[in-house]
């Protein structure tokens, strides 16, 4: 089944900061205004707004109701996704494909400087067992996943540390990366010597939550060509939800991503992802998860994800989640970064001749829910 193309016509990503000196209202306004300006559009052109915020991350219920004016949703059709920004993009895509909307504004936002990210994530757990024994959190889940992966495929810690190093080196070239992670001279040994979060997961293999906002504008095919000469097309999308229970899953691979990728590639007519995909922007919660997701997206054989780095393949040229991990916006940022590559706008970290890209989002412990987009450049 070939899907009608939806175009990405504009986007804006705020410069992430550990403690942003902006109110949430203002941050969203800046991102949304920036996206409209980048596409040369006006607020009245927007027909629907899909927001991605989280009540817990915003400190109030119905977190979108206060952000109506800032998000350009005043007197418009507006809705919220409380997952990842990439899911909001999927929602916007559905709305456009329904034929009822001509322009969808999508934004993701959160401000971890206002709340404690790790403790809030504990509220995601099953209240009867997991939360009462308080052994599962993002660190231990990441540690368990990493050990399972290392054992299943005989991967060493060094290989995973290499992924983290690559993430930091790529972040150094990305102007929109967090200043704290721009480490171009970091070595594998530095990563392995950093503090243990949850063995074998190290501090430098885990991204730092930071404040940020990302906005993106989607339009149907005909409309996109009117707005810009260089739209980026969404040609395929797949989504899959796995079970919540970590014990019921094989943590050494990501079945949700495998299924999502299968659907997305089928939709986009991609038979050999290894050779056809030029850029992959994957949202992995840890360096290890990046490899697991890349393998699940069929970019490498199972357990051979680390070879992607040696072969010079473009896995997260922007630095991935390592560069700026903003909860609720990270998946959306990955799509925007992939779109930048296809448009040739990523100056220092541009992958030459990029034509097809994938971008992923996820939500839940150890990527319970995965979503994958296939993007294509060229008007």
């Amino acid at each position: 089944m070939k899907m009608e193309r939806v175009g990405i016509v504009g986007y804006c990503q705020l410069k992430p900061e550990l403690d942003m000196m902006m109110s949430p209202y203002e941050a969203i306004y800046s991102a949304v205004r920036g996206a409209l300006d980048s596409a040369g559009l006006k607020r009245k052109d927007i027909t629907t707004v899909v927001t991605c915020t989280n009540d817990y991350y915003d400190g109030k219920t119905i977190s979108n109701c206060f952000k109506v004016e800032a998000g350009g949703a005043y007197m418009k059709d507006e809705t919220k996704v409380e997952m990842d920004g990439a899911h909001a993009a999927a929602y916007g895509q559905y709305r456009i494909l329904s034929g009822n909307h001509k322009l969808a504004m999508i934004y993701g936002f959160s401000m971890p400087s206002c709340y404690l990210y790790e403790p809030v994530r504990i509220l995601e757990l099953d209240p009867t067992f997991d939360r009462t024994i308080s052994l599962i959190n993002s660190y231990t889940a990441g540690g368990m996943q990493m050990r399972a992966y290392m054992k299943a495929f005989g991967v060493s810690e060094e290989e995973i540390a290499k992924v983290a190093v690559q993430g930091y080196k790529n972040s150094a070239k990305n102007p929109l990366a967090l200043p704290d992670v721009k480490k171009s001279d970091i070595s594998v040994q530095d990563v392995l010597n950093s503090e243990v979060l949850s063995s074998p997961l190290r501090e430098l293999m885990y991204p730092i939550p930071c404040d940020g906002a990302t906005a993106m504008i989607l339009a149907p095919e005909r409309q996109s060509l009117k707005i810009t000469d260089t739209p980026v097309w969404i040609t395929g999308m797949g989504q899959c939800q796995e079970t919540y229970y970590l014990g019921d899953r094989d943590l050494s691979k990501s079945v949700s991503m495998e299924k999502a990728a299968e659907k997305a590639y089928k939709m986009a007519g991609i038979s050999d992802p290894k050779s056809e995909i030029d850029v992959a922007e994957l949202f992995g919660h840890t360096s290890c998860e990046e490899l697991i997701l890349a393998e699940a997206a069929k970019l490498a054989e199972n357990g051979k994800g680390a070879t992607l780095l040696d072969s010079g393949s473009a896995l997260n040229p922007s630095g991935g989640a390592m560069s700026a991990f903003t909860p609720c916006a990270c998946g959306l940022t990955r799509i925007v970064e992939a779109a930048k590559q296809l448009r040739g706008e990523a100056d220092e970290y541009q992958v030459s001749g990029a034509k097809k890209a994938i971008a992923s989002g996820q939500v839940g412990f150890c990527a319970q829910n995965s979503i994958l987009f296939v993007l294509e450049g060229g008007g």
Partner: protein
Amino acid sequence: MPLPDYIKKQYKKTRTLHGNWYLMNYKYKFNLSRTKVFLKGLKDGVCLGLKCRSCNTVSFPPRLICGRCLVMPDQWVRLPETGTIATGSATYEADDKNRERPLPVIAVRQDGADTIWLHNMPKDIDFHSVYIGMPVKAVWAKERTGSWFDIDYYDALEDPAVELNKKEQEK
């Protein structure tokens, strides 16, 4: 229709677990750039509204963003101390004898502004005498500190229109 037995059995097996569904400490960030000017104006005894240059909407108290135009309004306008009641309701306060006394809560539209804000009426006013469209005038607090309640309350103004309208209806 009676419930099937297997569902009744499930009911018996259900237990309730007590837990807390709380939010951690949270920091709320605000932009003071507009609020500061507004509150300073109140301290000096001036009502300042913020006008959007694009759609000419005047907000009082000021809004950071004009939702209609998606711009940040930046033109200040001085507003008179008078306004009209856009809508209102009553809240109840216990008096000395522990009886409930209704107090009007009013939404005032300052003259020249397009938005409303919530405020008080004098405590001795009969809240049944408050009606929509009633003209009111701001009464300043004796000591102004730069806060929302530098306007102590809104006092009712004499309104000859009420009598005239009554006569008109009687005709």
